[in-house]
């Protein structure tokens, strides 16, 4: 449990011998340079970047896996991959894209943006935040280490028992323990972001003024909070079966293998919304900015997101329509599956209405956002056809399903995330990505995506099952499979374009200022990239789309008119104005913030003393213990497992005793009293 977040001054000598406790390793400070600075950071922005970059590397790996699968299926009776290799690759493709790509990309964006969008300086528990990242990285590397240690997981991303109980070797063990580790990462992230949004909003940032991306991320984090424990239990039971021969999924002992499916999908369906809601949030941020209109029906967007979150818990059995649940249960889940389309449909109409009568420009983020709306609609419609259960018994476990969820997760989530990447890149890096390459990226991806996954609809309806490593001639599947394989390489080309764009942009010199898009929300009021403390002073929020209202007012026809001078909030030093100590000592100031900022500490350069939590080694060290424990468990090398356990326990214990802010980081001018307060 990370504790209080009081704080460290900005410009202070890193070493303060005073009262320094004896430690094995010296605590890093905010000035620790280079790689150690990153490894010990608790800055939500750095962590957000690490999440995103790591997830993007996993995206490349998962994409290469996809290409291998498509080469194998490019024609009938191919021998490019052997059966078991194919099974490993498709298992890892699914597991990677869900747990190591889309979830952490969303987590990375949320980490970076949520605090800034609600006007906070950091997340609620900065060290827990770092732990989440390191655990995610440890889990991903642990799972991928299986490729070098006897073979990757080969039981599918859904891991149905009794197959996964029976499969020999350690392949499935890596999957089970890897997912457990990743679950810890997601859970800590969920607790952290939920508390951040609930508790750390700037004054005036009421719930119904929060940017929609914050809302959708909040709903997704609540889903994670409640969904992760369910799969934790399922994986726990499976690992006990595999390691200690318990009977949870032993049919011979009277178990019902459908228990696994219920637990897995009770997690797995909310998981789908965990993957798509943040992307919906991104699109809801991007469309208004480039339409120069507010989001149409903000309240409805919020409530439909919440409704999706709730209803997402009542549809899990639609993954099990063919398992023999009986007509009553099946009918109930059929109905719930169809009606979850209602809040989703509402969102689509509201997005279109946001465009309607706007003044649309089409830079790359807007293209991806519109692509999202167009492609997600297709995924939504095919989703409704799955609700028609008798038809679903023809569709399920065929490529029609594969088409459906790629339209949702690629055409939806990934398009949304790319929209977000292009939209917020200038905030992260202080530079705009190249527009020409961005547009090439979009169109290649749009065409490649439809070429790859569009034909899957046909293949599925023509009876091609999923998860087959080969198929014979004469089924009528040859042509569309070839088209799809070609399409997958077009997607690969588009991703290459994106990589080139990022690399090229790194070399350019640009100054995009705070607000390159003429945007609407708080993150665009601070420099790009933001300083460590985000806001020199915590902003006072007076309306939804706060920044827009500072820049624009409405005329009699309801059209926006730029204010002569951007409205300066006393609490919010304008982007161009250097904050001066005196400016904040007026009466306005006192009423805005209850004295929890203190401009009196500004030094000569007018840089405010804002005390941020200190970096720490413990999150990294705690995370390192998890793979050690897991290797020990998998290979039943109890000494290693115990070492891992002690390692984790020791790290957490040291962490708990470490104050959130290193004593030597506390302000020197703060007198001995403040130091003692922390030491006491």
């Amino acid at each position, binding site marked *: 449990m990370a504790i209080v977040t009081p704080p460290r001054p900005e410009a202070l000598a890193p070493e303060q011998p005073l009262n320094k406790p004896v430690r094995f390793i010296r605590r890093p400070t905010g000035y620790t340079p280079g790689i150690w600075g990153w490894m010990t950071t608790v800055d939500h922005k750095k962590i957000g970047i690490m999440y995103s970059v790591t997830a993007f590397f996993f995206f490349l790996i998962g994409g290469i896996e996809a290409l291998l699968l498509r080469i194998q299926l490019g024609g009938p009776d191919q021998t490019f991959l052997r*059966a*078991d290799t194919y099974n490993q690759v498709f298992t890892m493709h699914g597991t990677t894209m869900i747990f190591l790509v889309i979830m952490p990309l969303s987590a990375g964006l949320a980490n970076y943006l949520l605090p800034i969008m609600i006007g906070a300086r950091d997340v609620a528990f900065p060290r827990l935040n770092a732990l989440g990242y390191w655990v995610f990285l440890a889990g991903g590397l642990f799972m991928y280490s299986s490729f070098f240690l006897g073979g990757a997981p080969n039981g*599918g991303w859904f891991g*149905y028992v*009794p*197959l996964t109980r029976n499969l020999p070797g350690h392949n499935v063990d890596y999957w089970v323990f890897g997912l457990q580790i990743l679950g810890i990462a997601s859970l800590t992230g969920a607790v952290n972001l939920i508390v951040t949004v609930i508790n750390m909003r700037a004054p005036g940032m009421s719930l119904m003024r929060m940017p929609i991306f914050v809302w959708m991320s909040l709903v997704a984090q609540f889903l994670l909070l409640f969904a992760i424990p369910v799969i934790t239990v399922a994986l726990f039971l499976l690992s006990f079966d595999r390691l200690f021969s318990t009977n949870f999924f032993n*049919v011979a002992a*009277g178990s*019902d293998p459908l228990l696994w499916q219920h637990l897995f999908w009770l997690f797995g369906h909310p998981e789908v919304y965990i993957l798509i809601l943040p992307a919906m949030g991104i699109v809801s941020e991007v469309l208004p900015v480039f339409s*120069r209109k*507010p989001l149409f*029906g903000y*309240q409805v967007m919020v409530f439909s997101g919440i409704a999706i979150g709730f209803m997402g818990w009542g549809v899990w059995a639609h993954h099990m329509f*063919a*398992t*023999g649940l*009986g*007509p009553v249960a099946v009918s109930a889940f*059929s109905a719930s599956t*169809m009606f979850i*389309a*209602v809040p989703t*449909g*509402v969102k*689509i*109409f*509201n997005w*279109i209405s946001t465009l309607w*009568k*706007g003044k*649309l*420009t*089409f830079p790359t983020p807007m293209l991806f956002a519109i692509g999202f709306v167009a492609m997600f609609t*297709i995924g939504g*419609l*095919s989703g*409704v*056809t799955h*609700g*028609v*259960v*008798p038809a*679903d*018994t023809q*569709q399920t*476990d065929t490529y029609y399903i594969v088409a459906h969820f790629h339209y949702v997760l690629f055409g939806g989530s990934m398009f949304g995330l790319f929209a977000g990447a292009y939209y917020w890149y200038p905030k992260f890096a202080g530079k705009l990505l190249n527009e020409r390459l961005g547009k090439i990226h979009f*169109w290649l991806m*749009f*065409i490649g995506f439809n070429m790859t996954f*569009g034909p899957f*609809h046909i293949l599925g*309806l*023509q*009876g091609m*099952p999923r*998860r087959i*490593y080969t*198929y014979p001639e004469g*089924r009528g599947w040859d042509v569309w499979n070839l088209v799809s394989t070609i399409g997958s390489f077009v997607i690969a080309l588009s991703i290459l374009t994106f990589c080139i764009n990022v690399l090229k942009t790194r070399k350019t010199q640009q100054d995009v200022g705070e607000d390159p898009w003429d945007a609407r929300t708080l993150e665009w009021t601070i420099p790009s990239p933001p300083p460590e403390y985000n806001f020199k002073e915590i902003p006072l929020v007076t309306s939804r789309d706060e920044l827009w209202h500072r820049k624009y007012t409405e005329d009699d*026809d309801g059209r926006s008119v730029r204010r002569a001078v951007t409205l300066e909030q006393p609490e919010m030093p304008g982007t161009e104005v250097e904050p001066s100590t005196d400016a904040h000592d007026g009466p306005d100031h006192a009423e805005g913030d209850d004295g929890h900022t203190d401009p009196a500490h500004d030094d000569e350069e007018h840089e405010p003393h804002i005390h941020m939590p200190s970096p720490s080694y413990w999150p990294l060290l705690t995370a390192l213990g998890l793979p050690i424990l897991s290797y020990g468990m998998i290979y039943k090398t109890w000494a290693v497992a115990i070492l891992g356990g002690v390692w984790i326990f020791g790290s957490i214990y040291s962490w708990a005793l470490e104050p959130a802010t290193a004593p030597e980081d506390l302000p020197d001018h703060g007198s001995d009293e403040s130091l003692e307060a922390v030491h006491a």
Partner: protein
Amino acid sequence: MRRNRRLAAFSASLFLFLAACAGNAPQDTLEPKGPVARQIDHLINPVFIVAGVVFVLVEGLVLLAVIKFRARPDSPEPEQIHGNTRLEVGWTLAPALILLAVAVPTIATIFDLSKKPENAVNVTVIGHQFWWEYRYEDLGVVTANELRMPVGRPVELTLNSDDVIHSYWIPPLGGKTDVVPGRNNTMHLEAETPGEYLGQCTEFCGASHANMRAKAIAMAPADFDAWVAGQKAAAPAPAAGTMAEEGALLFAQKGCGGCHTVQGVSEGKIGPNLTHLATRTTFAGSIFNNNDQNLRTWLRDPQAAKPGNKMIIPGGPLAPDEITKLIAYLDTLR
């Protein structure tokens, strides 16, 4: 013009969707060949049409907005519209009503299809990694990989698994049902015309999931009765002095009977019953047509022919002349 290309992409995907109805795909789900599959088809076709209309409407609106409201040099700043309660209630209710219209016939069909058919042929289907066993308990027949059924009479399948979860599916005749160990799921199929209908296992079941295919052979009732009579009889013993007799001897020596039943000869339960192997059109999970050349490929190295299957040859690989003799024997199992 970029906008036009987008239009082209959309109409192309719509065209693809329609194209799915055509083509010569034996496992096509949209080409029903029996009443069960037809009932499903009749249910889904209007849903596809409604979905198509919504698709055109939504994508049309997106396109229209993109074309009509793109910024032009003289465009004024847009009116700041925050929402419209009436409209929003409208597009909440409209999809709800459409979905209600879809849900009612769906649920009716679910219950209709769950009814047990009358006068059905009962067959127990047992899923194995990676082949199907069919037990006609009432008729005293056991066979593998090919479901024989009379035309015009429903077949009630009771599904069970010997190992992991499989899923039984013959798309032209009906939807799939999972084959779950420890549960007895049921489903029924019916064919209208004699012929062969292809399908396959659709629940991932291990290394050779792709090689676990299924086949239903619908026959005129008289032919079906004749087939049953033939299956009930024991296979004739090979004539003395033939190569087939040497093969029979090898079958015993090599221990094939440990896994395979040949009625009157052996009682193995692990592999498929081979009593009437020669009457089947396919073998090994229906991935091979039943001919001498394929049998030779199979017996030379079963693991290469079908990765991960459970067939082992005790005492190592067979010599070519042993294979020839065994095939001669297997060919007599009519």
